[in-house]
C-alpha cells in the first residue's frame, strides 16, 4: 500500500509540472482562441534561461527571473506576430506559431549550444522524506505544492478579480468584452504574458528534474496538447484533472505494461473525445470561429487553364532535356502535391482542419509496404492497397472526427495520427518498429528514374485533377455549403455529417495513394511518415499555396520542396524557414496563389 501511495505522489509531481505548462496554454487558448504550438518552446526557453541565470545567482531567483523573462518573450510574440492574426482563421495562427517553434529552436541552439545543460538542484530540497517508509524527494512535494498553489491562484483570480471576470467573459463570449468596455488587445497582452510566464515557470522548475536540452519543446508540446484537449480547452480545472489523469495513467500503467509510455496519453485523449467531445470540463463556445476563412474558390479562368495545360506539356517533355536529379526532385514534389491536395480538399472546400493528415499518408505507405513484404504482391497491386487501407483508416477516424468541429476536430485527428505512430513503433513484428520496412522498390519496368517520374506524374496529376474537378463541381458545392453554414445546409436536406465524412475519406484516399508512391520512391518506410512534423509539412504546403485556390497544393508543394532543398544547405536554415512561414501567414493569408491573383488584379487595373 505504501508503495502505491508513493507512486501516486510521484505521479502527482509529474502532473504538477505538466499542469503549469498546460494551464498557460489553456488560458491563452481560452482568451485569444490561439492554439499556440510555440508553447513548448516557451517551456524550453524557461529551462535554458533559468540555467543561465542560476550560474550567477541562486536557483530560486533564477526561476523567478526565467518566468518573467519568458512572460516578456510571450508578450513580444503577441505584439510582434500573433496580434496581426486575430482576425485570421485558426489555421493561420497555428501555422504561424509553428514558424515560431522553428525560429526559437535555432535561436536556442545559437545561444546555448548543442549540449545538454544540467542545472542545479533546488537548494534546501535535495533530500528525501520518508512517507510510510518510502523515500519521496522533497522537490516532488514542493512541485505538488506549487501545482496546487497555481491552481488555487488561477481559480481565485478567475472567480474574484476583475481581470479574471474579463478573461472568463472573453472565453465564453468574446462579444461581451466590447459590452464591458474593455479593449481586447490589453487583455490579450496580459493573457499572453501570464500564459507564457507559466510555461517559463514550468520549464525553470523542470531544471532540477531534467537537463535543459533542445528537444524539450516538441517533447512537451504533444503532451500538453493532450492535457488541454482532455481537460477542455480554456478550462483550468480541466487542465489540472487531465494532467492528473495522464500522469497517474503513466505512473501506474508502467507497472503493468512498461511499453505503455508511448501510446497511453493519446489513447486516453481519443477515448475522452469520443465520450466528451469538448473535453472533461470544456464547453462548446458560443463563438466558435470559423476554422478557415469562408471564401469562394480562387480560379484563374482561361489563363489558369492555359497555364495548367502548358505546365502539363512541360512536365511531360521534361525528362528529355532535364538532368536526372531534377526529374527525381519533381517526382517528390508530385507526391507532396497529392498529399497536400487531399488536405486542401477537406480543409479548403470542407473547412475541416486536420493536424493529423500524416495518418493517411502513413497508412498508405505502410499499407503498400506491408502487402509487398507480407504477400509479395507487385507494385501496381501495392498502389491499389495503399489508398484502400488509408480509406479504411479515414472511414474510422472520420466517423469519430465529424462529431466535432474546428480545433477539436483537428485535435482528434492529431490524436489518431499519434496513436498510429506509436503503433508503428510498438508493433515491431509487423511494422519493423523504428527499423521500418526496407526494400520496397518499384517493379523493374519503373525502376528507371524517368519511368518512375511518369508513373508519379500520371497518378498524381490524375488524382489532383479529380480533386479539383470534385471541388469545383456539384460535390464541392454541397461540401462548401456545409462549410459556409452547416445548419442552413442541413435545413435544406443536406446530410452535413455524411458530406464531411466523405470529404475526409476522399482526403484520406488521396493521401494514402501519395504515401504508397512515396514508399516506392524511397524504398523504405519508417514511423516518421506518421509523425507530427509530416502533418505540419502538409499544412504548411496548403497554406503556402493558398487555401482557396484549387492549384494551391501544387504551388505549395513545389515551393515548399524547393525552399527546404535550398535552405537546408544553409546554417540555421530552420529559422529561415520559420521566418518564411510567419511572413506568409501574416502578409499572404491567401498564399502564393493569392499573391498572383492580387498582382493580376493590379495589372488589370493599371492597364
Amino acid at each position, binding site marked *: 500500500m505504501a508503495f502505491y501511495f508513493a507512486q501516486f505522489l510521484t505521479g502527482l509531481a509529474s502532473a504538477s509540472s505538466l499542469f503549469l505548462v498546460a494551464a498557460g496554454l489553456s488560458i491563452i487558448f481560452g482568451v485569444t482562441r490561439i492554439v499556440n504550438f510555440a508553447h513548448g518552446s516557451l517551456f524550453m526557453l524557461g529551462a535554458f534561461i533559468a540555467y543561465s541565470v542560476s550560474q550567477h545567482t541562486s536557483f530560486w531567483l533564477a526561476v523567478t527571473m526565467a518566468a518573467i523573462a519568458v512572460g516578456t518573450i510571450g508578450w513580444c510574440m503577441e505584439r510582434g506576430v500573433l496580434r496581426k492574426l486575430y482576425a485570421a482563421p485558426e489555421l493561420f495562427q497555428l501555422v504561424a506559431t509553428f514558424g515560431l517553434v522553428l525560429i526559437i529552436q535555432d535561436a536556442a541552439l545559437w545561444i546555448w549550444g548543442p549540449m545538454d545543460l544540467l542545472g542545479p538542484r533546488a537548494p534546501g530540497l535535495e533530500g528525501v522524506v520518508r512517507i510510510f517508509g518510502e523515500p519521496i524527494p522533497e522537490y516532488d512535494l514542493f512541485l505538488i505544492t506549487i501545482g496546487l498553489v497555481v491552481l488555487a491562484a488561477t481559480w481565485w483570480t478567475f472567480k474574484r478579480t476583475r481581470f479574471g471576470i474579463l478573461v472568463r467573459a472573453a472565453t465564453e463570449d468574446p462579444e461581451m468584452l466590447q459590452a464591458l468596455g474593455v479593449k481586447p488587445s490589453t487583455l490579450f497582452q496580459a493573457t499572453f504574458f501570464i500564459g507564457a510566464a507559466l510555461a517559463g515557470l514550468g520549464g525553470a522548475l523542470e531544471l532540477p528534474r531534467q537537463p535543459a536540452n533542445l528537444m524539450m519543446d516538441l517533447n512537451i508540446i504533444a503532451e500538453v496538447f493532450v492535457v488541454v484537449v482532455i481537460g477542455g480547452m480554456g478550462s483550468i480545472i480541466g487542465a489540472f484533472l487531465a494532467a492528473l489523469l495522464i500522469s497517474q495513467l503513466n505512473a501506474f500503467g508502467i507497472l503493468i505494461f512498461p511499453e505503455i509510455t508511448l501510446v497511453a496519453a493519446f489513447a486516453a485523449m481519443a477515448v475522452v473525445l469520443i465520450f466528451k467531445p469538448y473535453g472533461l470540463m470544456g464547453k462548446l463556445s458560443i463563438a466558435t470561429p470559423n476554422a478557415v476563412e469562408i471564401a469562394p474558390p480562387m480560379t484563374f479562368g482561361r489563363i489558369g487553364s492555359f497555364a495548367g495545360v502548358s505546365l502539363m506539356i512541360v512536365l511531360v517533355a521534361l525528362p528529355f532535356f532535364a538532368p536526372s536529379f531534377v526529374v527525381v526532385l519533381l517526382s517528390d514534389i508530385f507526391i507532396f502535391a497529392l498529399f497536400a491536395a487531399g488536405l486542401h480538399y477537406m480543409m479548403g472546400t470542407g473547412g475541416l482542419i486536420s493536424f493529423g493528415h500524416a495518418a493517411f499518408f502513413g497508412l498508405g505507405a505502410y499499407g503498400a509496404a506491408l502487402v509487398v513484404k507480407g504477400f509479395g504482391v507487385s507494385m501496381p497491386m501495392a498502389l491499389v492497397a495503399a489508398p484502400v487501407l488509408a480509406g479504411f483508416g479515414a472511414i474510422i477516424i472520420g466517423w469519430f472526427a465529424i462529431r466535432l468541429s474546428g480545433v477539436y476536430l483537428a485535435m482528434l485527428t492529431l490524436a489518431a495520427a499519434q496513436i498510429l505512430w506509436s503503433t508503428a513503433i510498438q508493433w515491431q513484428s509487423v511494422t519493423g518498429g523504428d527499423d521500418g520496412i526496407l526494400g520496397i522498390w518499384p517493379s523493374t519496368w519503373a525502376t528507371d528514374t524517368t519511368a518512375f517520374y511518369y508513373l508519379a506524374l500520371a497518378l498524381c496529376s490524375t488524382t489532383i485533377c479529380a480533386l479539383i474537378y470534385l471541388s469545383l463541381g456539384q460535390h464541392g458545392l454541397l461540401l*462548401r455549403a456545409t462549410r459556409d453554414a452547416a*445548419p*442552413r445546409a442541413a435545413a*435544406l436536406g443536406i446530410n452535413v455529417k455524411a458530406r464531411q465524412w466523405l470529404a475526409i475519406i476522399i482526403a484520406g484516399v488521396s493521401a494514402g495513394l501519395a504515401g504508397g508512391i512515396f514508399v516506392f520512391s524511397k524504398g523504405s518506410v519508417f514511423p516518421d511518415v506518421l509523425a507530427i512534423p509530416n502533418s505540419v509539412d502538409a499544412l504548411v504546403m496548403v497554406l503556402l499555396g493558398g487555401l482557396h485556390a484549387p492549384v494551391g497544393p501544387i504551388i505549395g508543394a513545389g515551393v515548399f520542396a524547393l525552399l527546404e532543398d535550398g535552405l537546408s544547405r544553409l546554417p540555421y536554415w530552420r529559422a529561415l524557414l520559420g521566418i518564411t512561414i510567419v511572413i506568409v501567414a501574416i502578409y499572404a493569408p491567401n498564399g502564393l496563389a493569392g499573391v498572383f491573383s492580387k498582382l493580376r488584379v493590379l495589372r488589370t487595373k493599371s492597364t
Partner: protein
Amino acid sequence: MTIALEVKSLSKNFGGLKAIDDMSFSLDDGGFTALIGPNGAGKTTCFNLLSGVLEPSAGGMLLHGQSITSMPTHLRARQGMGRTFQIAATFRSMTVLENIEVALIAAKQDKFDATALLDELGIAEHTDHIITELAYGDIKRVELAMALASMPSVLLLDEPTAGMGANERLSIMELIARLARVRGTTVLFTEHDMDSVFGFAERILVMDQGQLIADGSPEDIRSNTHVQQIYLGDEATLDA
C-alpha cells in the same frame, strides 16, 4: 383537413431552465399561422426543436402523421420541412444563383425555375453576385428563395422580414402568402412586426415563458386579455 404538423407535449430544458414547457398544437395542411410572443418566450427554441437543430427533453412531433421526434434535420427537410433562420443563414462563399442551386440539388428539384423566383423576390439583378456583396435585406430574400426552391410542404419562417422597410415587408409577406396558397404549403412564421402578423396570419399562436398561452384567429388573439397583459405597453401595436 388533414394535419400537416402535430406537436405533442413538447418540452425543452436547458439545465434548470424550462425553455419550452409542455407545448402542444397542430397545424392544418395549407394553413398560414403566426407564432408570436415577447423576446425570450421560446419561439426560436420551438423552431429549433421542430427543425431538429435541438433535441426535445420530452414530448414529440409528427410530420404528415409520421413521427419525426428523433429524426435529424436533413431527413426532416427531405420529408418536406423547410425553414429560414432569424439571422439569415446563407452560403457566403457562393453567388446568389449557386445558393439556390445548392437548395435545388439538395431537394433533387431539377425543373425549378430559379430565375423566375429570384425575379419575383426582386433580387434577379444580383444573380451572379457573391452573397457578401449584398445588403442584409437582400440576403434575407436569398435565404427565403432557398427555402422556397426546395418546395417544402411545411415551411418555418423565423422573422422573414426582419431588417426590411415597411413597404418591402408588405410585398414579401404577400409573395410568401401567395406562393404558399398556390403550392398548398403549410407556413408557420414568427414576426415582431404586428402588421405582418395580423395582416396575413389566418391563425396565431402566442407563447410566453416557454408555454403556449393562446391559440386562435387574429380577432380572438386581439381580444385576449392574457395576451394583452403580456404585451402590456405594446397594446398600441396589438391594436394596430
